[in-house]
């Protein structure tokens, strides 16, 4: 069976680009705080969502709507409305993280398929089975901290479908629990849908040296000829004692394309591509590449050579935690 590729769309044009490039499934969100990619100029108004879903369905693709931030106390109505509007737009599923929201969806929208967001950080079979029993969750997006054997162990003990990230920006903390960005900017992924938001980013070029600042703090500085960094806090270059280096994580992106056969063997249903904040050109290139890869895998052919490094942050890629090694 061909593994499903789940592709990002930050705009209706990207959704169409993803569908045209062969996406089985596209995920997107509304233009507000209900989704974890709440960036300027991005996401879908209600009418755009309806049209996007209709376009995808006309061409045999599915649409998942990410409503994966945690409702603000007293502001739950915005999140409830998002779920109702996703259902009436014809979405094939919603991607949720918050327990209360899962309970609300299960009770008020029982026919709307529920997926568990990576933001919920469900990393073992017990908790995944709990989400399935309590809220009818049908699929879980696994955190990017698991190895292939760990994923296989989860799949051996659950009927819930698993979806894993295979390409794009890497977020290394147990997902949904990282507040690094709040310290520098007051905004964090799980509350406001943004990590290291652009509104707090500043670039300065001085004699070829490029400094990337977040909330006034220099997070990274590179010389002429070196790839430009985005000042994501966990990927910054810091000084500790005598040493200067990437304390938490190197500024690299995930590319697990070569691991697709192992992920298939581990029982994974769907492969997720990160990047709702990227352009339609990126979406088209990455989707085409991964569609070719899963088709090759299903046909028992070798994985095609990837050509995607130039598209990634840091312009270097890693297999992430899927292959854990010591430095």
């Amino acid at each position, binding site marked *: 069976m061909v593994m499903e590729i789940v592709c990002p769309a*930050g*705009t*209706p*044009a*990207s959704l169409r*680009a993803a569908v*045209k*490039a062969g996406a089985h499934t596209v995920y997107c969100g509304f233009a507000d705080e209900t989704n974890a990619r709440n*960036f*300027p*100029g*991005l996401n879908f*108004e209600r009418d*755009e969502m309806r049209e996007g879903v209709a376009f995808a369905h006309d061409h045999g693709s599915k649409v998942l709507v990410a409503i994966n931030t945690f409702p603000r106390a007293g502001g739950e109505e915005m999140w409830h409305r998002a779920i109702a509007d996703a259902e009436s737009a014809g979405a094939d599923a919603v991607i949720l993280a918050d327990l209360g929201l899962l309970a609300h969806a299960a009770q008020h929208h029982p026919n709307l398929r529920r997926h568990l967001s990576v933001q919920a950080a469900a990393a073992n079979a017990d908790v995944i089975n709990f989400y399935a029993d309590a809220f009818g969750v049908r699929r879980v997006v696994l955190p990017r901290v698991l190895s292939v054997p760990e994923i296989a162990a989860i799949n051996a003990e659950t009927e819930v479908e698993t979806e894993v990230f295979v390409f794009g920006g890497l977020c290394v903390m147990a997902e949904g629990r990282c507040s690094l960005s709040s310290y520098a900017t007051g905004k964090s992924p799980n509350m406001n849908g943004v990590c290291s*938001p*652009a*509104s707090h*980013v*500043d*670039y*300065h*070029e001085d004699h070829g040296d*490029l400094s990337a600042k977040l909330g006034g703090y220099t997070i990274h500085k590179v010389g*002429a*000829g*070196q*790839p*430009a960094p*985005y000042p994501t806090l966990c990927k910054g270059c810091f000084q500790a004692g005598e040493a200067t280096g990437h304390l938490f994580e190197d500024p690299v992106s995930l590319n697990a394309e070569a691991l697709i056969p192992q992920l298939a063997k581990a029982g994974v249903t769907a492969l997720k591509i990160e990047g709702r*904040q*990227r*352009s*339609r*050109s*990126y*979406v*088209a*290139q990455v989707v*085409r590449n991964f569609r070719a890869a899963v088709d090759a895998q299903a046909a028992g052919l070798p994985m095609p050579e990837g050509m995607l*490094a*130039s*598209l*990634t*942050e*840091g*312009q270097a890629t890693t297999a992430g935690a899927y292959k854990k090694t010591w430095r």
Partner: protein
Amino acid sequence: MSDHSVNLPLFPRLPALALKGMPLMPVSMALSGFARRIAARHPAMFRRLGEYNAARFVLDPTDLPLSMLLEPLNGRPRIHLSRRTLRGDARIAGPLSGLLGLVHGAYDGDALFFSRDLVIEGDTAAVLALRNAIDDAELDLSAEAQAMSGPFAAAMRRLIAMAEARTGVALSRHEEDGTW
């Protein structure tokens, strides 16, 4: 430029030099008119820009002896060309082929930025909003110019094709999937 740079074609030196003597006022007015006609056909682009409709964007093609101030103004955009350094809320600089390639979906903005082919300064959120709004609009400047040329559309198409061939700059939209 980094080892990973995308190899953007540079605008040829001679025609770039010719731009040095060009009167900028009438060209600015013509470009503003062109931009307003495009705006009328793509209102969603300005809805997407949101609060950044009030931002002032400096677009600086580094292979040309001039730069451009773009003010979106809620769908009544204004363009001003200058040979002097322009000030705005945000500046996007890079070869003309890169800037137009972004408009036409031929390149990914982040990839050009990571590779240092594009430089951005000032209000990063405004730049992102502009990039996303333009990317979603699926603009084709060549088709827009032809649509506005009435009986001269065919001549305009030939002229644009010639300019593309001579300069290597993509003046028309790049279809993400040729087989579609």
